[in-house]
């Protein structure tokens, strides 16, 4: 089933067409990787889907609902989650509090007023176990190491439990072992979630991607499996120049 349909998407920043007539569909439970040289519009595409940037034209449909004009919190409630390139945990909150914010099934104000800050403690504990952060749950997130911060972010994505998860370079700065474990977690997530990942690490892409879209100058250059992409002449030209 087509979960996300992006049709003829456009955005311009002061004359620069960052995304120019992009069209693609994402199936439910799929892991789609976006590749492309710097400035190809990969991150912008994620920004457009999650609502950080408003498109100048085109449509984005989630399970048939048009979302391109919605505010970001509405889209999040419909099931779109986002992990940013720069680690964005709440440094002044503890690890457990970070997770409690991420557990956002009931984001309304009345539900928040009627519950204690850490009322979802069991759910949070299980997720922390999964990423090996249980011992740090009362630590301020600002005191975590870079790797631990990445894990906390992934834990927060699991806690948020979005149907469609958008990730911007999730393995940046990770060691090889950490990257492997991330790949493992991604594969287990894809059973119940759809993932769109921007990533440069080709070995990681090879392990996780079901399908790859290569972008160049805001448009789709090629689409297919990893083998198809690696043998595509246009892709080689885009990456290596003329």
């Amino acid at each position, binding site marked *: 089933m087509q979960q996300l349909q992006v049709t003829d998407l456009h955005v311009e920043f002061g004359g620069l067409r960052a995304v120019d007539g992009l069209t693609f569909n994402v199936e439910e439970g799929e892991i789609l990787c976006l590749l492309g040289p710097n400035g190809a519009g990969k991150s912008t595409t994620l920004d457009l889907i999650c609502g950080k940037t408003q498109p100048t034209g085109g449509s984005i449909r989630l399970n048939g609902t048009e979302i391109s004009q919605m505010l970001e919190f509405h889209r999040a409630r419909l099931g779109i989650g986002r992990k940013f390139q720069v680690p964005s945990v*709440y440094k002044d909150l503890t690890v457990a509090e970070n997770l409690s*914010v991420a557990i*956002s099934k009931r984001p309304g104000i009345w539900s928040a007023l009627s519950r204690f800050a850490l009322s979802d403690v069991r759910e949070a504990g299980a997720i922390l176990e999964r990423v090996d952060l249980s011992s740090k749950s009362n630590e301020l997130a600002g005191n975590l190491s870079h790797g631990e911060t990445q894990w906390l972010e992934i834990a927060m994505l699991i806690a*948020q439990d979005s149907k469609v998860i958008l990730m911007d370079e999730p393995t940046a700065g990770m060691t090889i072992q950490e990257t492997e474990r991330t790949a493992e977690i991604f594969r287990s997530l894809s059973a119940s979630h759809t993932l769109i990942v921007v990533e440069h690490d080709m070995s990681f892409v090879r392990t996780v991607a079901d399908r790859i879209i290569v972008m160049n100058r805001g448009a789709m250059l090629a689409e297919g499996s990893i083998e198809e992409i690696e043998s595509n002449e246009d892709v080689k030209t885009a990456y290596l120049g003329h």
Partner: protein
Amino acid sequence: MTSKFHYDLIALVIFAIVIAFGVPALMNYDGFELNTFARYLALAIASMALALSWGTAGLLNLGQAATFGMGSYAMAMHLKLRASDGLPDFMGWNNVSELPLIWVPFESLAFTLLAGLLIPAFIGGLTAVFMFRARIAGVFVAIITLAFLVAFQLLVINQQGMTGGQNGLTGLAQLSLPGWTVDPYSTGFYYLVAGCLTVALAIGVYLTHSKFGLILRAIREDADRTRFFGYNVATYQTAIFCLSAALAGWAGMLYTMVLEFASPTYMGVSFSLAIVIWCAVGGRESVIAAALGAIIVNMLEGRLSDVFVEGWHLMLGVIFVLVVMFMPRGIYGVITETAKRLHHPKRRHRKTDLQSSSTKQLETGQES
């Protein structure tokens, strides 16, 4: 957090016991002294209300005095009507021949009490909706609320026929509750104000430890990130603004009862900034600390302004500068840092790794 919540509950209970038993005993149940202290307690409510919006949500509301003044005037209008036979005296002096329509419902005590909470909440909420829908944040919130305060004070002063203008509302009756005429110099009145402060603090402690408070802290740190979790940031910010305004209105009502008049200086810039100073001295992260800050600074003012009539404001300014420079988290920060050091002596070792090994041995010796 649960342990933090317990600490806050213990602090609240101790605070309540001290103001309920310690303070009156210390003052020998003297009516005049208790009235003075009740004034501090009323101001403490205004300070803890600011701690909710400033400390928890990071929204520096420099217009806190406006909502405080609304509550204060609501109560004063009721008490003025009770004191007058028909038309309040100042209206006659201003050639107002008929009671203005907005004064009429303040005949009712129930309406007055509701209005003292709901009008500030509504006006606060209205400004909040316009600001936060437009995603205004940081210093611009302070500027807009300050501008609103100045405009509102001007409006009150200019509508002399309705508000008493520069003179405010004076010659008020004492509040008569069913079966109790509230004398502001009685022990009973002191307990009324102390009880109100305790309830307000209990509400504040609950709010800061609820998920609502957690989301507000998340918004303070990164509003955009919080939106991507599906939280409607503007709604949360508006809600805390309304709550904070209602509490300030509550404080204003009590303040009018303490001083037995309402004045436009309650809506002045200097009063509004004073609330910020109390809050900063006590520690804006904790409602109890902010209340304590208001009490301490006002007690100091009470003692020192008798001696240094002109110099007092300068001293207050110096205190504020020193607090911001040397204890940016206020008294609360000093207490929590000290407690942390006592609880986790290991932390100190990491910091002292570079020091000579002899001091290290000394410290491990102390630990065991």
